[in-house]
């Protein structure tokens, strides 16, 4: 018995080997919405298809993703927090910021809509009504792109959300949505995560369509001049892959079969001779 166990341990050890060479590993820091919607899986599979690269995608909030960029921990970022992104590039941590994708945020709430948010003329008005009714609101509170957008909307509504009706979850989009669902609270969510979780939650869209609710995603290369350990070649390869026609087709088709609608809108104009070396 002891021998069988020892043999099993050794077999496990060798089963664990086979780590790819460091230069073939591309580390992408991205947001939870890209993972939770399922987009990350199809991009990863397609990018790795030719066997040249392994994509290590870390799905965290945009704030944390940029933190991974600021310490040279990631090679490339796919994030959605435009103001922070501009600052990130201005401070010299990143280059080649390319906004290529968008979808939108939606304000979700319980079907009974206690704060009468339905019918608000825009997102700021919706937030005003939630605060006026002191209806529960769950915030990501994790410096993610969604959180930053939410803070902007509170500012536009002229409200400092610090009262007892405002819950700070400190979790990813899916975790925050689950809390809001259980507490029958209002919440700001990106549409892709909402659709991915719609079958599991009872919250409804109470406000959508405002220009202020647009959600823009960008790619940023981590500055190799600042961080020599960054896998520049691999990051360029992923950058080029995402900004290519096959990736565009995949992204535009994504969600049609499962949700009956397009989840992400590709707005980068691909140059036919786009070549990144």
């Amino acid at each position, binding site marked *: *018995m*002891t021998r069988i*166990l020892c043999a*099993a*341990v050794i077999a*496990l*050890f060798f*089963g*664990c080997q086979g*780590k790819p060479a*460091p230069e073939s*590993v591309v*580390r992408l820091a991205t947001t939870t919405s890209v993972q*939770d919607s399922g987009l*990350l*899986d199809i991009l*990863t599979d397609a990018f790795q298809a030719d066997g040249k690269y*392994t994509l*290590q*995608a*870390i*799905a965290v909030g945009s704030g944390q993703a940029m933190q991974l960029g600021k*310490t*040279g*921990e990631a090679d490339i970022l796919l994030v959605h927090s435009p103001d922070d992104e501009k600052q990130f590039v201005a401070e010299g941590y990143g280059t080649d910021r390319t906004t290529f994708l968008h979808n939108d945020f939606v304000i979700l709430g319980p079907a009974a809509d206690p704060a009468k948010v339905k019918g608000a003329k825009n997102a700021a008005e919706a937030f005003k009504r939630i605060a006026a009714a002191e209806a529960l609101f769950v915030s990501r509170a994790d410096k993610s792109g969604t959180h930053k957008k939410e803070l902007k909307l509170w500012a536009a509504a002229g409200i400092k959300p610090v009262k007892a009706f405002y819950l700070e979850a400190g*979790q*990813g989009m*899916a*975790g925050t*949505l*689950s809390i809001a*669902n259980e507490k029958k609270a209002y919440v700001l969510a990106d549409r892709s995560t909402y659709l*991915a*979780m719609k*079958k*599991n*939650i009872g919250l409804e869209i109470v406000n959508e369509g405002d220009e202020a609710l647009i959600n823009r995603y960008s790619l940023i290369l981590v500055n190799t001049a600042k*961080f020599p*350990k960054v896998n520049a070649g691999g990051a360029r390869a992923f950058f080029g892959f995402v900004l290519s026609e096959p990736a565009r087709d995949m992204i535009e088709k994504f969600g049609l079969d499962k949700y009956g609608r397009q989840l992400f809108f590709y707005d980068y104009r691909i140059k036919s001779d786009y070549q990144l070396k």
Partner: protein
Amino acid sequence: MGFIAEGFQKALHLILSGDSEMFAIARLSLAVSVLATAAAVLAGVPLGSWLAVKKFPLKKLLIALVNTGMGLPPVVAGLVVMLFLSRSGPLGFLNWLYTPTGMIIAQFIIALPIITALSISAMQSVDPKFYQQVLTLGASDWQAIKICLKEIRLTVLAAVIAGFGRLVAEVGAVMIVGGNIRHQTRMLTTATVMETQMGNFDMAIALGLILLALSFAVNLALTLIQQDKVRAR
């Protein structure tokens, strides 16, 4: 109530249909925790035995530190390992962050104090006169420790079971060091957290059941060895 029963039903279906990704996750979980336990046993049992039999200054303080380590929060272990393995950290050149190797190191650090501390107390349960006697018969320190370990192997095995139980159920350290990357570092525990947050309770229950089954299988194997030895006495 209905959705819980339905969740279990779907979970069983998922397990029986042999979802290949789910089994790859289970395999990785098992590999990481077993290897980390094995490494912690190789280091912790000799270390604990030595600490138990040797007399040296500050021995009590050191043992108190090891005992404190038994309660080391996995997230703290994960954070420290992450900082050391990060590219800007001192061990960044190894490229072990977000790999199974990194997760094994973090779990090793969690298990080491547990197995060391339990080895210390197991060794101290041996009559000191017995140890002295073996020494006077001409055995070296390590030979004497080996002989004593044979006497207490059942208790040491209990230490192994305790260490493995802690590791296979652990989520904080592997989440931080592994990053829950699909096909690479997604473990049963981290996948369960993710699926729960997504509201995919059937998948979460299925993963939880597999985790329980795995834990049971390993503990059964260890217990069989333990009980075999009881009979052999």
